[in-house]
């Protein structure tokens, strides 16, 4: 299937320009709103260009995993509801959706940004489970970045509801203490098109890209990497992408900090 649009995107990139007028290493405008979904313990609505993602944090009390009896549990889930996509298949989430959730999950988990030991209520018996639900409202590309930003913003926004150990009841109307979140992992996604590296691909660019990679950082440390989509990167390209991820990660980290 010859896609003229795809060819156009690729031709533009060859000339170092992009379909929406950005520079190759320029991100789209990021808007972050937090706390707008009152039923959630924490929430964020992130707009990255026309990509729109709502993230909600819900908490519950569960038995811990046997190998981490003193730690809370993180569950990251993504839904790609049909309102945001003309081609919807009912049924369990597809591989794209699962990859999205798992990459965001690893960025948060591996960064150590959540102090899971503080989420232990009673060792081996009861710990807090933190559900991070990513709900895609519009997909104009780079969902991983938008979702990763939304997830950490929602976590920073979240307050723990009151838990009555005796009656085993959660009172969601009383949320006082903040979630113990100390760092801000930020994923940055770079696509390769016609041998050029571009930042934050929009949907048309994603359809034309050869390779994709997401690097999540906290300050000067990498905490997760995911190459996806096929294609390849050279060693040299990977080193440059790490630099980009750290530099842009820092900018976005500041932005998030200012919003929560």
């Amino acid at each position, binding site marked *: 299937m010859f896609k003229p649009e795809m060819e156009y995107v690729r031709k533009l990139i060859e000339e170092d320009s992009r379909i929406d007028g950005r520079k190759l290493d320029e991100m789209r405008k990021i808007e972050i709103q937090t706390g707008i979904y009152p*039923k959630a313990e924490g929430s964020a609505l992130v707009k990255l260009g026309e990509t729109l993602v709502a993230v909600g944090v819900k908490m519950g009390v569960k038995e811990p995993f046997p190998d981490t009896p003193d730690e809370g549990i993180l569950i990251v889930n993504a839904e790609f509801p049909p309102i945001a996509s003309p081609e919807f298949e009912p049924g369990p989430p597809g591989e794209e959706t699962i990859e999205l959730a798992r990459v965001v999950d690893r960025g948060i988990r591996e960064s150590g940004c959540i102090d899971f030991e503080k989420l232990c209520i009673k060792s081996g018996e009861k710990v807090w489970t933190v559900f991070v639900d990513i*709900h895609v409202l519009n997909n104009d590309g780079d969902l991983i970045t938008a979702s990763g930003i939304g997830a950490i913003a929602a976590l920073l926004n979240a307050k723990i509801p009151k838990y009555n150990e005796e009656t085993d009841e959660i009172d969601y109307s009383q949320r006082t203490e903040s979630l113990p979140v100390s760092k801000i992992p930020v994923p940055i996604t770079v696509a390769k098109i016609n041998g050029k590296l571009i930042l934050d691909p929009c949907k048309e660019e994603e359809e034309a890209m050869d390779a994709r990679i997401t690097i999540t950082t906290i300050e000067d440390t990498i905490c997760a990497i995911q190459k996806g989509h096929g294609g390849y990167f050279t060693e040299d390209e990977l080193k440059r992408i790490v630099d980009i991820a750290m530099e842009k990660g820092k900018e976005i980290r500041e932005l998030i900090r200012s919003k929560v």
Partner: protein
Amino acid sequence: MKKGKPERLIIDGKRLDGRDLEEFREMEAKIKVIKSADGSAMFRFGNTIAIAAVYGPRPMFPKHLQNPERAVINLRYNMVPFSTEDRVRPGVSRRSIEISKILKEAIAETVFTEEFPRTVIDIYIEMIQADGTTRCAALNAASLALADAGVPMKDLIAACSAGKVDGHIVLDVNGKEDNYGEVDMPVAMIPRENKVVLLQMDGLLTKEEFEKCLQLAKKGCMQVYKLQKECIKNTYKQIAEGDENV
């Protein structure tokens, strides 16, 4: 008795959220909220927020599901996991299947489906926040989204709930009232034709109370209808005036 039930839900004629018995929560309607959809809308009763998107009419596949005489309407009502206090497990539930069915049947009453044989009209509804009267918000959003998509319709559908709380007949039942009150009765109408296209009721009502609820819901639907019409008019007015932020 249900745990957590407040002693009283109505005190001195005022509901716990400060409303009068026959007063709506703040309502809001908006169209064109989803860029990729053919039509879309948001409808809000207080903290109950529904977003609807319409795709189609478009050819239906696989072919054996086509109806040679009319468009098939496909509707999916879904609760976002963080829309309620207890997280909603993703995926369909028996509740969401039933609600999808009755919303679809109500919507079908207004659409000229016979104009688009062999096609499907997909209507997707996400409950972003749920605080009672969700199916009515869903239906209001869906009807607006269909209008936004330019699908030929007899008229808009307007929906709201009435109910019985602490012995009083009230308008626009919220989550707490639904949970601890006596009766929840969602009603959807084609207001100008006085047609009831959706009606459910749970709880105990005498015939007189039922009629009172129905009357109240009917008045409520007229108010919703007015808001829907204004929403459409204002949006097109803004577009005509070249407002880019629509």
